[in-house]
């Protein structure tokens, strides 16, 4: 043990350096002492050299290799960081491949099928054809001008990759590019998150953040292989834009501002969630202004981002003039204006001193702000600026969508988030998240303010919509990584402070707000000799117990390591069980444990593809529109691009009405086949009967007199499909199509619906206007053919009765009139 008197720099002399460079000191300490811990990083040579010079003799908790030159340390660190980052990328990609290995290289779910189809058009027919693509098979007969109603970023990205691969003589199927795009970009996201976090904190925190984002289920849920959706590349773009924004803000360089704008432009082209960046950056700038941190760096960064970014975003056909016409974009414009005003005022103030003049200027700023805000309000109300979109309102009032827009509320990913899903998607990160935010408050430089704002906003949004879980995941990873690395740094740092008295002495002479920095500074400054001795229980001596003891360190570090192991274990388990199902192919376990693949969807879609006319119109609930278009290649009435509520309501009405009402609707829309999803036999809960109430609600929104939700519930308010079901329910087209001939499967035994757990009445369901055309192996997909009008003019009910052997006792018209009544002209 070194004598206590042997300390050279006094606490007083260490204090100023701690004040001037409060954040570099921990780095310094870690840089030279913790070279064994590969997740710790260094800054630059100068600091290391300084630190090396300062640490001649110190008390250490454990031995360190001596005699290694700072350059070697630095190079090793760089190499290790690179290798670790590469491994993290590999892990991020690898953990997303469950679906490909278990099933096959297949596009998942619903929206990806459309993106895949669009990518094929782009690759096969070129960019201009893609841009001008009019799809007559979608939203039949309205059609969809696809090129100008989608975010092309995703398809263009994969198209470019496809072309690049062909250029180097690697002819890859576009499907494989699409399937593997999300994992590939997940690797890039890890890299971008590393850079972003490094800007916020240390490179070691950056590596942790990269590792977290790489395998966090909250992000994996949207980016497994085959999940070819906008979010697959959007999170990478989000993190890159933020990174470059911070970079631009720190350097005050318009070059970085422009790079931010370019990534922002790419983001706009890729995902509707770009509005988050559009509001996040102005909010950050605005808060900085309020904090009195306006400076030329902020001005340059923001102005170059806003101007170039807005012009870039307006190049996307789908966005076009939205940045200057909608409320969502007004914040960015407002802050841009505000910055100009403040810059102007600052310039004038610098040139013309004088209190009165300043007052005048301030009044001018306030006046301009009020006038422009009033102009904004007037423009909004006069219709020049569109008010917030419906989805946006539902962010503020969670009940809004259910009342006003059932179509939005009906989407499962628009539901409010359940509490357990935070833990499910983020595991321990959600607990470290506030700690990280706390650390940001501690330091509170410009970039930490960004994290705080981001955390606050996204925490709210993630609570409102399940889908926005994706937005909170990056900030949770970054924030948790900061907290985690602070903890690790504190406990792995081998430096042991001399005595409590001196530390107290050192701390008491400093203002309390810098306590942490001082503590470390004092500890570092006291060392003048590197010396190792056992501490804690092993040391046995007095004064070696407490948090600096090796046992305490070991306990804390091992618990943290256990957390990390559990996190990896949890993430892998969640990814494997919850997020790797393609949903077009289902898997179940046989009694003997072997896997049973349920491939009903593709079976049915290929049946349609091979057995129906090329222009046969298939009606289904909108969930399956993209899949039918993608796999069956047939026109559909409605699809997952839910732009026309009335058209969807029409389908909802047809499904929820009886045959007499539904048939004219089907004929008017030239429907040839009706497709329903029925899970009652297998216990597949995502079937149409479970979605049925949404169809009713959406139809009711348009035809409140004809469709009423109350009629589908029993008197006791239950949603029943068994004997208790109401006549309206039993006569609805959806009910009939789902349970048609269902009881025959059970050979006289009561028919059991395994999803609802109810017994289906054995009385046969009679379908007059539809013919059963196809039912898949496990009855998940049932397809019905719409009958044409009877050639000799009978009602369909009469035809069914006639074919069933029933004889007419009176002619069809005799009940209406004595005869010869007016003959309506039948439609085509």
């Amino acid at each position, binding site marked *: 043990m070194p004598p206590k008197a042997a300390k050279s720099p006094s606490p007083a002399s260490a204090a100023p350096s701690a004040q001037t460079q409060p954040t570099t000191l921990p780095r310094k300490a870690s840089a030279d002492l913790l070279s064994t811990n590969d997740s710790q990083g260094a800054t630059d040579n100068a600091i290391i050299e300084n630190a090396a010079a300062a640490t001649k003799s110190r008390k250490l908790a454990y031995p360190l290799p001596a005699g290694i030159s700072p350059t070697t340390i630095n190079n090793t660190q760089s190499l290790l960081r690179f290798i670790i980052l590469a491994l993290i990328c590999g892990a991020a990609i690898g953990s997303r491949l469950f679906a490909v290995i278990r099933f096959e290289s297949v596009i998942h779910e619903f929206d990806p099928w459309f993106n895949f189809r669009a990518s094929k058009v782009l690759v096969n027919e070129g960019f201009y054809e893609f841009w001008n693509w009019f799809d*007559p098979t979608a939203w039949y007969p309205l*059609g969809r001008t696809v090129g100008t109603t989608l975010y092309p970023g995703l398809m263009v990205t994969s198209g470019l990759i496809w072309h690049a691969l062909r250029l180097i003589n690697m002819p890859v199927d576009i499907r494989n590019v699409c399937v593997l795009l999300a994992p590939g970009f997940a690797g890039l996201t890890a890299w971008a998150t590393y850079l972003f976090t490094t800007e916020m904190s240390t490179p070691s925190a950056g590596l942790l953040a990269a590792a977290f984002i790489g395998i966090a289920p909250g992000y994996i849920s949207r980016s497994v292989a085959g999940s070819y959706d906008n979010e697959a590349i959007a999170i990478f773009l989000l993190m890159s834009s933020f990174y470059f924004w911070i970079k631009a803000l720190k350097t005050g360089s318009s070059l970085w501002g422009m790079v931010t704008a370019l990534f922002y432009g790419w983001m706009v082209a890729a995902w509707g969630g770009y509005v988050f960046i559009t509001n996040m950056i102005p909010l950050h700038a605005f808060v900085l202004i309020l904090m009195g941190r306006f400076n030329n760096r902020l001005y340059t960064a923001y102005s170059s981002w806003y101007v170039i970014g807005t012009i870039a975003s307006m190049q996307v056909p789908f966005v076009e003039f939205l940045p200057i016409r909608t409320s969502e974009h007004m914040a960015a414009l407002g802050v841009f204006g505000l910055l100009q005003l403040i810059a102007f005022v600052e310039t004038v103030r610098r040139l013309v001193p004088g209190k009165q003049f300043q007052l005048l200027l301030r009044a001018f700023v306030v006046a301009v702000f009020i006038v422009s805000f009033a102009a904004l309000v007037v423009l909004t109300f006069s219709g020049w600026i569109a008010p917030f979109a419906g989805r946006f309102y539902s962010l503020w009032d969670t009940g809004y969508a259910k009342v006003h827009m059932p179509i939005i509320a009906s989407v499962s990913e628009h539901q409010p988030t359940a509490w357990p899903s935070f833990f499910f998607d983020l595991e321990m990160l959600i607990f470290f998240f506030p700690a990280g935010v706390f650390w940001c408050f501690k330091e509170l430089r410009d970039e930490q303010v960004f994290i705080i704002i981001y955390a606050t906003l996204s925490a709210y949004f993630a609570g409102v919509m399940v889908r926005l879980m994706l937005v909170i995941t990056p900030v949770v990873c970054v924030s948790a990584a900061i907290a985690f690395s602070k903890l690790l740094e504190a406990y792995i740092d081998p430096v042991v402070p001399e005595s409590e008295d001196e530390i107290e002495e050192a701390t008491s002479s400093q203002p309390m707000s810098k306590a942490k920095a001082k503590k470390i500074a004092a500890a570092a400054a006291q060392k003048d000799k590197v010396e190792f001795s056992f501490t804690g229980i092993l040391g046995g001596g007095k004064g070696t117990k407490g948090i600096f003891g090796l046992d305490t360190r070991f306990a804390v570090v091992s618990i943290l390591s256990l957390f990390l192991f559990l996190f990896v274990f949890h993430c892998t388990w969640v990814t494997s069980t919850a997020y790797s199902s393609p949903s077009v192919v289902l898997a179940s376990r046989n009694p003997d444990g072997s896997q049973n693949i349920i491939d009903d969807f593709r079976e049915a879609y290929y049946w349609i593809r091979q057995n129906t006319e090329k222009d046969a119109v298939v009606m289904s609930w909108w969930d399956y529109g993209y899949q039918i278009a993608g796999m069956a290649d047939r026109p559909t009435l409605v699809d997952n691009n839910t732009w026309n509520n009335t058209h969807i309501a029409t389908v909802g009405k047809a499904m929820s009405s009886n045959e007499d009402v539904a048939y004219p609707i089907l004929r008017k829309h030239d429907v040839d086949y009706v497709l329903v999803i029925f899970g009652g036999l297998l216990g597949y809960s995502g079937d149409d009967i479970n979605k049925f109430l949404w169809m009713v609600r959406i139809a009711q929104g348009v035809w409140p007199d004809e469709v009423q939700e109350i009629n589908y519930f029993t008197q006791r308010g239950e949603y029943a499909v068994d004997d208790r079901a109401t006549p309206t329910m039993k006569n609805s087209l959806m009910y009939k199509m789902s349970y048609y001939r269902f009881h025959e499967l059970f050979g006289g035994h009561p028919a059991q619906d395994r999803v609802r757990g109810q017994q289906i009445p054995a009385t046969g369901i009679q379908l007059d206007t539809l013919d059963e055309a196809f039912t898949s192996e496990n009855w998940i997909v049932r397809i019905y053919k719409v009958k044409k009008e009877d050639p*000799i003019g009978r009602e369909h009910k009469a035809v069914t009765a006639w074919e069933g052997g029933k004889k*007419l006792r009176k002619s*069809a018209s005799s009940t209406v009139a004595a*005869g*010869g009544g007016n003959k309506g002209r*039948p439609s*085509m």
Partner: protein
Amino acid sequence: MRPSAFLLAPFVGLATLLSVSARSSTGDRVLVVLEPSVKKDDYSKFWASLQERGFELTFKEPKDRDANLVKYGETQYDHLIVYAPSAKSFSPSLSPKSIIQAQYSGINTLFFLSPELTESTREFMREYDLEFVDPSTTLIDAFSHPSGSPASTVLLSSTSSLVPNNGEILSPSTLSGGPIVYPSGTVHVAGQNPYLVDVLHASKTSYVGQDKALSGDEAEVEKSIGGKGKEPVVSGKKASLVSALQSRDNVRIGFVGSGGLASDEWWGKSVQNTDGKTLETGNAAFITDFTKWIFQETGVVKIVDSTHFREGEVEPREMYTKKDEITYSLTLAKHYTTSNGTSAWGPFEVDDIQLDFTMLDPHIRTALVQDKSATPEVGSVYAAKFNAPDRHGVFKFVVEYWRPGWTYIRTSTKASVVPLRHDEYPRFITGAWPYYIATISTSITFLLFCGLWVSLAEQDKKKVNKGKKAE
């Protein structure tokens, strides 16, 4: 089904009767189902007239098991005559269900009925929305019947009882020809089935009743109930005697309330009416016209061709741009029989066809005008020229021509109307000059400003550096 029958017809004709060629547009194989009580020889003139027109008749009884109308999905006959009103049972191949199935596959049918209709036949007829009066009641007209015949042999004036304006069902000569003898026939009421066409109805003075003197007791009962509890008496125009039905698929079905109408007894004979005038009956002409129509000889129109193209082009496009000038043309041909008795297609000239350009609802409805300058191989050309609506979507060119007695003309062709391509918009617009000027002036001013800034900054380099340090 029909095209194949159409193709087959010449071969069948060749194989059987080389001398006679078909005149029907669909085929000449006729199955005649006669119940045993109907004597074939009583109708020899009718059969002869059919054979003369090129039809090949096959006679069967209702219970014949080998009388398959459709075999292995192929129609075995093109037309069917059923004269078995009182037959109690039919072989499965001739059951009502089989007959309707055969009609679905394109077999035209002519039913001869009588007051002795069995209940099962009545039920069958109800499927066509025809309600027949009570059994054993017939049409009676005390004022108009051939002299020497009972009141149930009604003599119907061709001018008042035959329904005119039914396309080509009846020829003008028949409509103004001799009276039609309707011997002991039944009466039906046609329902609201839109495919039904009334061809012959009763006269004002005729009514439905039993053609016998009531016995004393019966008269007493009749008096006491005062006609109550009976079916309402149908008479006049509401009492249909001969009806026709053309299905959606243009299969034709005829219902003749009295089989005796076609018998030799009244075929081309002269009769004396109650006024004592001698007139030649119109039965032969009526039956001939009616069977011609039923067997697709008259009133048949086919769509030879339909096409659409953009102004200046000839080929149809799958996609038209908004406001394109589109021409739609339709070639229609009418079937007729040549003087040497063969089937042929000729021009079909009308002036009331219209075209709908529709997406859910018609966006454009315009007249299809005959293009006399066009010289098609066969038929007449109708064309319409219009501008595509300013609305994108999948549109249909729909022509529906629906006139009684004519084949229903229905055609629907899909084509999309799409917005302008990215490079099809006008590049420079006069109205946008203020914006162009604003853009250009801003750019120039910015360049000037940059130039000034750079040159000024060069001069004040020292000052700027100082300022930076101060910061």
